[in-house]
């Protein structure tokens, strides 16, 4: 019994935040909601954590209905909102103890669950939460969300604003939690993190574009992608966009991801074209599609 969402819709007056969302998260699954800012991820989280009531549709968390059994859900879920929302003027230990107490448990009772996260912040346990670094705050928030041994964990953009090293550590922690029989629903705007989930749902403008494993999503990408680079990035993008056969042009790190409309595309042709546009140091290499490419293609 994981999470079951069927035909959930929610609008704020004129704005449609969610439209007919349905998906299922299996027990012990690490499920990712991937989408840009404003896609409706937080709204969906707030509905599933019983903070918001949907206009239409049904959702159950570990078999409990979000409307009728919200009290049971609150006992069994852990929620980590996108914004750091612990008491900044209480210390690390006091925050943790506070959440343990209001869940009717103690730190000792479920210590083994949070142990490997808590040891990292334990040296600072007498420091006020407001004085912690971004990564430390995330770890503390995760501890607080786990202290009552939830069956389902909701993480709303947990790695936004966290440095790459802490982000990697954080995902390692999630993988370990999964081993401890916890179903995890995580949202992120970072496409590279999507590959770390068991399954992902791509969401945009309140609608789900696709649900599958990251591998399958990439596999379904039919086009051949080329990494293109040249001496002048800005001019390169403009030239590529002006090229008559271009299908998509997206900047991707130091390269530009380029796809062509023709199936018999010859990179040399493109190179000549770019040289005519007075670009130098041109390199055109075939590359592997990523989730980001899939998302951009679907969101097109």
């Amino acid at each position: 019994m994981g999470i079951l969402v069927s035909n959930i819709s929610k609008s704020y007056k004129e704005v449609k935040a969610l439209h007919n969302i349905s998906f299922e998260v299996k027990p012990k699954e690490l499920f990712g909601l991937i989408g840009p800012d404003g896609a409706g991820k937080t709204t969906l989280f707030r509905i599933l954590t019983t903070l918001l009531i949907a206009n239409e549709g049904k959702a159950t968390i570990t078999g409990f209905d979000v409307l009728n059994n919200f009290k049971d859900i609150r006992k069994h879920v852990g929620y980590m909102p996108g914004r750091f929302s612990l008491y900044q003027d209480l210390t690390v230990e006091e925050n943790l103890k506070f959440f343990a107490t209001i869940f009717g448990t103690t730190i000792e009772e479920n210590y083994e669950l949070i142990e490997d996260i808590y040891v990292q912040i334990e040296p600072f346990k007498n420091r006020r939460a407001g004085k912690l670094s971004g990564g430390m705050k995330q770890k503390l928030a995760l501890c607080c969300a786990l202290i009552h041994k939830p069956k389902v964990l909701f993480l709303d953009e947990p790695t936004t604003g966290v440095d790459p090293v802490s982000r990697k550590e954080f995902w390692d922690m999630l993988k370990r939690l999964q081993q401890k029989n916890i179903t995890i629903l995580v949202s992120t705007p970072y496409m590279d993190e999507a590959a770390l989930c068991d399954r992902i749902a791509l969401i945009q403008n309140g609608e789900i574009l696709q649900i599958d494993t990251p591998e399958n999503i990439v596999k379904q990408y039919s086009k051949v992608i080329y990494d293109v680079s040249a001496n002048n990035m800005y001019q390169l993008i403009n030239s590529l966009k002006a090229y008559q056969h271009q299908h998509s042009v997206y900047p991707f790190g130091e390269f530009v991801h380029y796809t062509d409309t023709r199936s018999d595309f010859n990179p040399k042709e493109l190179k000549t074209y770019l040289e005519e546009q007075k670009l130098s140091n041109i390199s055109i290499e075939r590359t592997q599609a990523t989730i980001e490419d899939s998302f951009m293609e679907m969101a097109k």
Partner: protein
Amino acid sequence: MKIIFYIIQKEFKQIFRNKGMLPIIFVLPLLQLVILSNAATFEVKNIKFAYIDNDQSTSSRALIEKFEASTYFNVQTSFPSEVLASSAMLKGEVDVVIDIPLYFERDLQKDKKVNLGITINAIDGAAAGVENVYITQIIRSFSKQIKMDLKQKSDSQIQPVNIETIPLFWYNETLNYKTFMVPGILVLLVTMITLFLSGMNIVREKEIGTLEQINVTPIKKSQFIIGKLFPFWIIGMGLLTIGLILARLIFNVPMLGNLVLMYAYTSVYILVILGMGLFISNFTDTQQQAMFIAWFFTVIFILMSGLFTPIESMPEWAQILTEFNPIKYFVEVMRMVMLKGSGFIDILPQFIKTLIYAVIMNILAVWRYRKTT
């Protein structure tokens, strides 16, 4: 129970760690008590007094000396003409001008009747009224004296009967304003601090996002609310205690009534205020909004509480409105118990009304409080 206790503990920790808030809670109110109680008096003193003496006689000078002798008047200048006196009043240099007519002494002796012109600056109507009373008193005593001086032996048989009133001021014999104001101002402080703090407190959790985190926990509405508001109940009681000690030590305000009764009433009264605070925080999203609404209501409540202006002199519709003013009841009870020594039976009507108010206010506030948005 354990949960409530822990929330209370957490709340106190946060209050005492807030270095900016602590002095606001404890030092400023007491400073206010000391300053306001000394400053907010209805006694009119240092009245700027001027005169136009057209007579320049012994009698006119005697009259002016009477004013000079009074502690209420600051005799400033003599003006040669009424025009100059008027322009001085326009500039605000004088408050009262007395115009002594020509032949003042002669008419007084001959006709035993004379008219004096008195001009009072009545921009502050209340002060003008008080000044009028002072002037009348001085002139009356002056005329009595004159009568004695002019009295001839033959008149003694036909002396008119004189009715004199000697007022006795009960419960505040010397009409000491501090005795009257201190209990009222204490009420004001207890109310303001508890209302502002409780109103802002839950909104603060909304603002910093912790409320959302709390709302997904299985904590009960009642546990959370009691845990959040109880510390302010304690702070309110603490403020009352400190205020009473100061009232006794600095202002020597009499405390005739039973202190237990006063605490019992206050404990119910603070519940009304906390209910209001919670109610306000239900409707607001930021501390700023909460503060502004709380401030708006406090001002109305204070001005209509009978603290500064007597309720009896308000128009009838306003008097009916004051029935819904909790501060009014607190001011009444405080003055009755402290100055008059009223017992439980005497304050029963106020007590019951406050209790009903507390129950209704808290039911409304708890009913409006939602864990979901």
